């Protein structure tokens, strides 16, 4: 299964990535796209700063994609995660899943995001609207719960 995993400072274009994923693939019947954006948290934030562990981030995302491929019949996956300063309204992360049928594409996209949030080595720090550097964003228990749903007994 083709998988494109990219960690980059630059923004991305969902339409361009969708076209690349489906190009020459008449077996694809469904593409699900998840795009994560930076929120301003009710005006409190001026930006989020994204730090990552180069090398491991790519490796961990590849392992997560392999897990998804073992669970669902997928035609292809694209994951793009940005790093650096990202302002409210800007895109942070893209997960695209292509499959012959919609259920595999929906479920795999959700699985990939749940595992990405809890396993991929990225960290966010808040930059506040008043110019100060804020706190590191704490991992959310609800994200652990979301990932745990996929654990097999």
């Amino acid at each position: 299964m083709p998988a494109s995993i990219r960690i980059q400072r630059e923004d991305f274009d969902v339409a361009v990535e969708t076209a690349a994923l489906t190009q020459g693939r008449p077996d694809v019947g469904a593409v699900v796209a998840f795009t994560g954006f930076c929120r301003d948290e009710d005006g409190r934030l001026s930006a989020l700063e994204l730090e990552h562990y180069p090398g491991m981030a790519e490796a961990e995302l590849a392992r997560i994609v392999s897990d998804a491929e073992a669970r669902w019949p997928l035609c292809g996956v694209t994951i793009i995660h940005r790093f650096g300063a990202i302002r409210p309204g800007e895109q942070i992360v893209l997960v695209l899943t292509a499959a012959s049928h919609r259920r595999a594409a929906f479920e795999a996209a959700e699985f990939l995001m749940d595992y990405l949030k809890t396993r991929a080595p990225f960290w966010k720090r808040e930059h506040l609207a008043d110019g100060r550097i804020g706190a590191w964003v704490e991992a959310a228990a609800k994200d652990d719960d979301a990932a745990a749903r996929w654990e097999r007994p």
Partner: protein
Amino acid sequence: MRLVYFAWVRERVGKTDEEVDLPSSVSTVADLVGWLKARGDEYQYAFENEGVVRAAIDHVHVKPDAPVAGAREIAFFPPMSGG
């Protein structure tokens, strides 16, 4: 062996990475954390809540009981908050 630190662990330790020669008494990740904490206040501070800081050996997540023998790079970092 190379140690690397990320996010607030990096800030508390005060460096992004370092080379260390471990004594033979350090056989697991938990041993390594204990050895680091004995090196100074900055490490005490970074690892003050044991069980919070995560570790990876050669780009793979590991638990505290993982052996460090043969590791090229060991990373310490907070729980992930990307996406």
